[in-house]
């Protein structure tokens, strides 16, 4: 299958305050490369400060990388070209409740990306919102509700609806499953897997729950202090962890695959 997203030698460093002849740099992310195909999931595992969030921010365009290039379908993504990027790469966060504007109805919330990014008229937009809500397991009539009328699990579905409404190709799930209750979490996993098959999505899953990573992802990248310490097929990495960091992670979750 063809490569959907190709990341080449992305790196990010911040300049720290210091004397002008004594400038120091902090490497948040050492150069790293990876590629994802459609319908595949790449998991990124690491502790706080491992650079995984920085990587996610660079991918969606909230940060500009110091060096390196990102290709989507073979096309170079330019740093300033947000329109192209936000149509194809979307992101869902852990705390879905706080990312939804409480003063807008669901329809208005979902309308926003459509108005900004598409040329659809009002009726088409409404229809699209309705079908998208149904896709994520909500009712079309839910669009007149306000976010506070939904439970945590449903809010996460609305975030998902907002993410897929522009027919993206890559979705970044930043701990999106961590705060959900277990029974809702498995519903969400099932839903995400279904959508992946239907729409040919590629996921980048940022998580520290190895159980979910094992179940959900094809490839995994273990990060520590801005560097990729181990990567490969999820099953193989977990069967036979090589690096200390990976081993420690698996130990801490009492995780073992025979």
């Amino acid at each position, binding site marked *: 299958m063809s490569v959907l997203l190709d990341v080449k030698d992305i790196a990010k460093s911040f300049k720290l305050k210091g004397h002008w002849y004594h400038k120091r740099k902090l490497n948040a992310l050492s150069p790293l490369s990876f590629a994802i195909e459609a319908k595949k*999931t790449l998991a990124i595992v690491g*502790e*706080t400060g491992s650079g995984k969030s920085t990587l996610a921010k660079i991918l969606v365009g909230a940060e500009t990388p110091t060096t390196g290039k990102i290709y989507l379908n073979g096309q170079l993504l330019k740093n300033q070209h947000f329109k192209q990027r936000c149509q194809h790469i979307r992101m869902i966060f852990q705390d879905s409740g706080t990312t939804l504007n409480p003063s807008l109805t669901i329809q208005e919330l979902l309308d926003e990306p459509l108005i900004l990014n598409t040329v659809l008229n009002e009726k088409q937009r409404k229809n699209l919102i309705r079908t998208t809500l149904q896709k994520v397991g909500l009712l079309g009539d839910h669009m007149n509700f306000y976010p506070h009328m939904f*439970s*945590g*699990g*449903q809010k996460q579905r609305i975030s998902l609806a907002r993410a897929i409404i522009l027919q993206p190709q890559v979705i970044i799930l930043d701990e999106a499953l961590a705060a959900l*209750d*277990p*029974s*809702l*979490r*498995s*519903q969400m*996993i*099932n839903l995400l*897997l279904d959508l992946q098959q239907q729409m040919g999505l590629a996921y980048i899953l940022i998580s*520290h*729950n*190895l*159980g*979910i990573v*094992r*179940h*959900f*992802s*094809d490839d995994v990248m273990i990060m520590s202090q801005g560097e990729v310490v181990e990567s490969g097929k*999820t*099953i193989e990495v977990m069967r036979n962890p090589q690096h200390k960091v990976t081993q*420690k*992670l698996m*130990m*801490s*979750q*009492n*995780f073992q*695959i025979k």
Partner: protein
Amino acid sequence: MNLLDIRNLSIELDTPSGRVLAVDRVSLSIKEGEVRGLVGESGSGKSLLAQAIIGVLEDKWHVHADRFHWRGIDLLRLSIDDRKALLCRDIAMIFQEPMSCLDPTTLIGEQLSEAIDTSQLSGYFWQRKKQRKEAVIKLLHKVGIKKHEQCINSYPHQLTEAICQRVMIAIALAGRPILLIADEPTAAMESTTQGQIFRLLANLNQLKNMSILLISHDLENLTHWTNTITVMYSGQFVEAGSTEQIFNKPMHPYTRALVDSSTKANLQLPTKSRLMTLPGSIPVLQHLPIGCRLGPRCPRAQQTCVAAPTVSNYHGHKVSCHFPLLRETGKKVKGSH
């Protein structure tokens, strides 16, 4: 001996839309020296129950119980002040988000020394200050903080979440409690630090014979650290038993679904296959189903389930369901999938 023995505890809340039975006849017992897990998803009333135990509930909440014994003393017969004095002495509680529980404007050392009761110090008043400081350092060592000087002289925001939680545990230990209630102590922490906190609690349990009530929404996180587990759903008692019983032979459809949906218990499942799950979402307090509250989501529900089930006891494995998954049926269910 049972340290804590609660039978049929109910909590009613006054809301604008009338009284709501938020916790519906839940029983809980804790033996001396055991670690009990209390598992429930959001809205299960697990935190309410914990608050009812230590008695920090508001007046708007009405608590009834058939039995509420603490170390053999019937608390229901004591006056409120006596009860509070007794429970304050013996029970301590730690919460999630430790940073928000600590006073941001006071040094850690002062907050810790505040927690140390004067009656624990011997000696004349001019020796007190020194003793107090020694006691603080000892407490910090107990929870595994070695750089005590640095910690004492910091404000909460200068420390990491995990260190703050350790400080909270130290404050809790200052009163030398017999029971420690930990309400999601590791929520929003890294898995490696989570392990450290759990290990610290396990050590305290072993060395000091302190009983622990560990509250969490995630069954699979708890199983490694608990002796017994009680499961709640939407304010109702679901199932209680030893950790092995609950995790390996769940009898209640809800516990079964929790175990089945856990990715850790299903390592033999092929990747990206669908997980077993219950349909629907957790009911909100304003619209609770009658009878068994799992009813609308339960795969085994039948007509009888509109009446709340009673608790039946299978060799210490208590389950509240009209149609529990007994061993044979459990196997059948497994085979048919």
